[in-house]
């Protein structure tokens, strides 16, 4: 079980969190004309990298904040965690 450092609450066990997928995906702006391709990329297409991955976790049984976690998908090492609106290094 992972040990995730919530930037709001501190180190907490994985079972307090829900996984939220790739954190680098950016939702297209509202009311903007975009191609089917662009939209499909946003809705469906995700990279599944082996290694470093910036991902979303939701601290559902804690502060209820969405956070960003930089994690190695093969070793599970967590390098850094960020608040939702924090700049990524």
């Amino acid at each position: 079980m992972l040990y995730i450092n919530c930037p709001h609450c501190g180190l907490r066990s994985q079972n307090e969190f829900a996984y939220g997928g790739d954190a680098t995906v950016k939702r297209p702006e509202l009311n903007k004309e975009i191609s089917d391709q662009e939209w499909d990329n946003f809705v469906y297409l995700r990279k599944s990298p082996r290694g470093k991955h910036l991902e979303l976790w939701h601290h559902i049984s804690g502060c209820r904040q969405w956070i960003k976690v930089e994690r190695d998908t093969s070793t599970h090492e967590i390098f850094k965690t960020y608040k939702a609106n924090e700049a990524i290094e």
Partner: protein
Amino acid sequence: MTQDFRLDNVGMVNREKKISFKFNGKKYFGFEGDTIASALIANGVHLVGRSFKYHRPRGFFGVGVDEPYAILQLDRNNERDPNIRATEQEIFEGLEVKSVNCWPSVNFDIGAINNFLKMFFPAGFYYKTFMWPPSFWYKIYEPFIRMAAGFGEASIKHDKERYEHKYEYCDLLITGSGPSGLASAYAAAKNGARVILAEDKPRFGGSLLTSDVNIGNQTGVEWTEKIIAELKSMPNVTVKNRSQVFGYYDHNMLVMSERISDHLPKTQKYLPKQRLWYIRANEVLISSGSIERPLVFGNNDTPGVMLSSAAKEYMKVYGVLVGKKPLIFTNNDSGYETAIEFKKNGVNPIILDTRSDPSSDIIVEAKNLNIEIKFSHVVVAAKGYKKVKSADIAKISDDKKELFNIENIECDCICVSGFWTPSIHLASQSGNKSKFNEKIDAFVPDKSKQQENTIGSANGIFTLEETIKDAFDKGFDVSNKITEKNNKISVPTVVEKKSTDHDKFWCVPLPKGKSYKRFLDFQNDVAVSDIELALREGFRSIEHVKRYTTLGMATDQGKTSNLNGLQLVSDIENKVVPQVGHTTFRPPYTPVSIGAIVGREVGKHSKPTRKSPMHSWHEKNNAVFVDAGVWLRPRYYKQGNEGLFEASKREAKNVRQNVGVCDVTTLGKIDVKGPDAAEFLNRVYTNAWLKLPVGKARYGVMLREDGIVMDDGTTTRISENHYHMTTTTAQAANVLSHLEYYLQLVWPELNVNVVSTTEQWAGAAIAGPNSRKLLMKLFPNLNVSNEGLPFMGYKEADLFGVPAKIYRISFSGELAYEINVESDNGYFMWEKIMEVGKDFQIQPYGTEALSTLRIEMGHVAGSELDGRTIPYDASLEGLVSKKKDFIGKRSLNRSAFTSTDREKLVGVVPIDKTTSIPEGSYIVKDPKAKLPNPKLGHVSASCWSVEYDNPFSLAIIKDGKNMIGQKLFAMSPLKNKTIPVEIVSSHYVDPEGKRVRS
């Protein structure tokens, strides 16, 4: 009581306390502190089971977790425990155990005929023997395999025992209380670290219990007792026996199973049977020790052949002789310790040493004790069927290829020592890549992966002096990283006998003309010839060889067999062992009971049960409840002999004719507040929200980004910047997460807050033509006329002194209101509604009537919004704004979503107006068409229409709009029904929606 094999005054069992137990129905005696194994051996019993494949007789091979043979079935306190290891299970008064994998009895086993049919059970027999024809599987192969195979029988009864989980944190977890575990725990504890020391066995000390050594001026046993007593007295230390750390998971999470009551006749009150500990440790010291390796020779699975260290432990710990004419077969000095122990207890052993001319302190000691030693000698084969009676032994050439002077000598046990294998399982589970140590012919942990270090013989350190010194250092180092107290204690001096190098030889060649089975894996009956065959058949990867031959796949997970298997593969392949590599070690290290894994999450405790504040009223009024997510909701209120059908029909009819009240507390409720709340709702819902006035409610639909309907519900504008959102019961949690996602990550610039208020409000829906009259009486000061409180209106009022919120919304399609009060006032509200409602023929209605009402009206719910439908499919396209953007809108332009033959909501009525259509039925054109019959869609919900008194269903079918009026068929292969039906509008009752506005 005579126990022929029990020594006087030797061992650690409590001679004061005699314990009786039954094995295969026969009564035996042992002492407190005995295991089943030690007590049976004391009674001269060595036949305890049959092997998996050939049903060969099985005895005892080890003395602990490595035991591959003695797997028994235990009956304790009317519960059944399969697969317990006789070498670990302590006896208690009244214990009953049985052999497994033998029929009709362990002494006469019909399956042993497999032993003579070996050609049917070669390597890969699973894949070869039982393949064809497929029709044989159910009737012939499977029952045969099931009867012949397997270890024990699981109980089909509910396990009444209690199991618990515990979460713990510590600075340092130490997995084993042998010399390295004790030394490191002591050093770390003295340096102020929070330490957990876990020992699998009942007794602490590990190898110190059986070795002839001194630490400081004390014997190993005395030193153990002193250290344990001191550790137990320290507040920063937790010491646990009967506790196996079996899994090393991510981020230094380890799991340990503690057997609290397994050694007692009955679990004590307020204590669990077993407890699973989830331990998050800052640092881990793995001190799991090592397991002696077998030597491989003919019939080396005969009962009476066992590990030499086990024989020594049976003597020193239990005061039990495994035999009176022992043969010690060794390739290293360890066998000598066992021989000397026999000699000290008045038994004359013979040592066969594969080495030609070794010399060390302990060999000198054995010689001085006049123990007969034969150098360059091997056991060729054990003789005897149910117990060793003699052994063919031989001199072996220096190149270990040729055997000379084969002779038969009498013996009643053969104690083997093929040197030691470090238990690297936990280190390996942590991600540590192991490395091969040529000096000890075994794998040891490599660089630390997580915060773990391996110490003592688990790390391949086999001298006590080095072990103690290294463990004191590691205990200090890892604790000091955390405590920084620099309190280093001095390392005691150690006295031990120095030993010399072991012989790399481990597998005795077959003598000419003999075809003895030489076993590697004792539990799964994998012999040298099976590995040879697998390699001949082209298997190369050790992982494939393992699965093909089943080497190391039994419940002992190859603790004694893995390394010899690797050696053999590398010998045949002419590779070195590290090139072959080893198979992956996965948790658990030892079997863990399912009960312990489940813990308290059984039955009612497997999920929380949520009840509305009116629950006890429902109970008092004969409600029959149904699970709605984690909520319990009344499904119907039973009157007299009514069943579900009659009761729900009566309740629904009463709503259509008079007035009914339904507990709607379970609906999800979310407060949406902030200056940008309207803008936020406008982006979340498909319809327009910017112009909703204060005091008005609106029905809304929200989508996922992929265009699929996520949820629906009404949201009311309570004040300028405050909205009250409702969600379906099932989606409440998901919707909240969804809203938080957009507010925190996508549109952080919106000044809005959301919070769940589901549990803050109790809700009652009042529906039916009499509902306004009822409302007038409940709220005499409120103008509830159609103008005062119109459809989708909202008012706050006083309900007999209690503040209430009234929403004029309807799910039933009738004139209806929903009243919310604070949860604490829910019961009061409900009673008042029932009391006042009497004059208007009020009746409570449950979820079944609620369904009937909404189906008749063509209102969609979870069975239509099933994660596959877009608004069009559920006939919600009128709610999709063309003007503004919202979550998921762009997806609705996708060609699949705009295609005209999409499935769409319709109503379905059986032509005969009597046959109910099973939910899930397919709608087809021609019921006799060739399979697979093209389906037009499926029936999503069915009810008995109380308005028309005939069955009515909703269905989602292809090109639904143009199908109305068509005569088709509903087919349910599950219920074996084909029903002619007519497609009608989904708005079966009041299609103009007059009632809700009346």
